[in-house]
């Protein structure tokens, strides 16, 4: 099991109110699978993704990445796990706009301990995988939405992670670019990456490659197909 | 480090170097000696402060020193 989620609860505290956002999530994601978390805005998809990435702590339950409980690890190890195994793609691309495409893609590798030369090699490979090599020296802020998203893909790929988490990746893209993005996902899936996409975009309902749609509503998985 | 930063640091180092050389090459000894010579010639070592000198405000306790009323700022005399 690549990602194993057990009895996961996440409750936010607002003043004196308790807001349960995730209620008893159980999910097993196998290596190489492509999962589409589908649900309306506010159903808890982003919260779930941050818990998987270890960017947030569950109120109870746990998340295991390759058998390691990411939510329980001390920061140094959780960060290392995240750096090695998880690539993230965000709705707002979240690039450093004043840096070039190429420079943006180096960021995840800076704390890796690699030499600058090795980093450059990996960056170049990621750039060509994401089909953005030709814009390498352009400032990220000057790119179109589609190009920014491809830069974000390159950045997610640069450390060669097994898992790619995407949060509403097409929310800020037009239809053509969304389709291009889906093509890239297909390619990544073919490379054997485990992919989790949180989205409410109907384009993801009929993918032309094997994928599992998991509908979420009100912090719960409505009906899951993964329990074997 | 990237090149523009390296050049910036080099410029800084150069400026520090210029300052250091000015400091080291300054004729400290000659200057202090001249000062000592003038004090030992005239037996006067108070600073030549450019304040209008008013004889009525003479510091009676310490004729060498500025008057109390004039001590409101440094070295005033």
């Amino acid at each position: 099991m690549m990602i194993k989620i057990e009895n996961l609860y996440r409750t936010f505290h607002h003043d004196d109110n308790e807001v349960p956002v995730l209620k008893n999530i159980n999910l097993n994601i196998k290596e190489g699978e492509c999962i589409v978390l589908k649900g309306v805005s506010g159903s808890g998809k982003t919260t779930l993704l941050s818990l998987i990435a270890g960017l947030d702590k569950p109120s109870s339950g746990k998340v295991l990445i390759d058998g390691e409980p990411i939510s329980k690890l001390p920061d140094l190890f959780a960060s290392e796990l995240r750096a090695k195994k998880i690539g993230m793609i965000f709705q707002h691309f979240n690039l450093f706009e004043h840096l070039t495409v190429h420079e943006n893609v180096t960021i995840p590798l800076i704390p890796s301990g690699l030499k600058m030369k090795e980093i450059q090699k990996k960056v170049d490979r990621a750039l060509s995988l994401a089909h953005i090599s030709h814009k390498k020296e352009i400032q990220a802020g000057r790119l179109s939405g589609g190009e920014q998203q491809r830069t974000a893909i390159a950045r997610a790929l640069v450390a060669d992670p097994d898992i790619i988490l995407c949060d509403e990746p097409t929310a800020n893209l037009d239809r053509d670019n969304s389709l291009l993005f889906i093509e890239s996902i297909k390619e990544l899936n073919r490379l054997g990456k485990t992919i989790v996409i949180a989205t409410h975009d109907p384009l993801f309902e009929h993918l032309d490659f094997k994928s599992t749609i998991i509908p979420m509503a009100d912090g719960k998985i409505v009906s899951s197909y993964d329990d074997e | 480090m990237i090149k523009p930063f390296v050049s910036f640091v080099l410029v800084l180092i150069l400026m520090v170097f210029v300052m250091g050389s000015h400091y080291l090459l300054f004729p400290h000894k000659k200057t202090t000696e001249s000062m000592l010579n003038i004090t030992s010639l005239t037996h006067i070592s108070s600073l030549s402060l450019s304040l209008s000198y008013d004889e009525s405000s003479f510091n009676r306790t310490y004729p060498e020193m500025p008057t109390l009323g004039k001590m409101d700022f440094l070295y005033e005399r």
Partner: protein
Amino acid sequence: MNANAFWHFLTLQLVKERSKHLSVILISMMIVFLLSSVLFISSSIRYSLEETLKVQPDFVVSRTLGGTAIPTPMAWGDELLEIYGVSQVTPRVYGRYFFEPKGKSFLLVGVDFMEEQSHKNLQALIETTDIKAFFEGKQMFVGQGVKEYLNAHFYKGSYNFLTPKGQFENVKFFKTLPSQTNLISNDMIILPLDLARKILGYDEEEVTDILFNVPNTDEWDMMTDKLSALHYDLHVVNKKEVQRSYANLYNYKGGVFLILFLILLATFSLILYQRYSMVYSSERRHIGLLRALGWSINAVLRYKFTETIVVVSVSYILGVLLAYFYVFVLGAPILREIFLGGKNLHNIVGFLPVLDFSVLSSIFLIYALPFIASVLIPVWKVSVTDPKEAML
């Protein structure tokens, strides 16, 4: 973490985001500049003063009448010599001479050029002088400030002093005193003793005051009593008192600077606070993003810390450099007026470069610590919370 990649990214960010750092660097540079200029000037003056205080005599006696100094009889000098332990009795003739039209004044000092020591000093001061020429006719040495002032008032070769008896004394400029001594000699005129007496209105047997040394410091307190018993109108000051007064002046100065500094620091913190509350949300996002991309809290803190250190050091070095050139190369225009005054003669003082490293390092600490703290504490707070913001 590989230092190479780390520094590459750090400097890249610094250079590309320079507009973000520029205002902070400029403001802190100005603060360091002001602070170090003031301290450079004061430590330079202090150094020069201390050097000259070394050759200051131990005691000064003068005659007072109703609290005002009046001419002191030379005969007191002989009486002093008879006291056991007294050495190097030296009479001084000096006084302010007013250049009437503008109320400006010069310090007239009479020197006994017959003395061997005076000869030596003079020779050392004015290297090329053929001293014999000095005694042909009435001549004087003038300080740079005096010379400039008199030249500006069309006294090119000589000046007519008016004695208290209503006579004019025409005295020629012989040489200008070397500019290195301006701190002391700027408003000084040195002339032969009897000429000085004439112009200042002293009789043959009168002087302004009398200096002497008492090498054994244990005798100083007793000496004061002895002297006071000598004449009822004898006023005595010893070097310790002078030094104490200087020390008080310095302490006082320290207080002034402390206040000045606190004001600066308060302004500075306010600016920093404003800046950080403004960029706080974007900073939060950046940190969250770095964390989401696999940076550990340690890595983020190290990055931000190093960035801050670089910004702090750069502004500090620039500030100190600027202050050095301003004070010791340009001679601190404007600020000089505050320290040396600008009411009397134009001051042409050049400051003797003095780098007091303890002062420099305390400026660094006092300035850098609040700076670093005000940047790093919020950064630390953001880093340790779970960086879910990056996702939103």
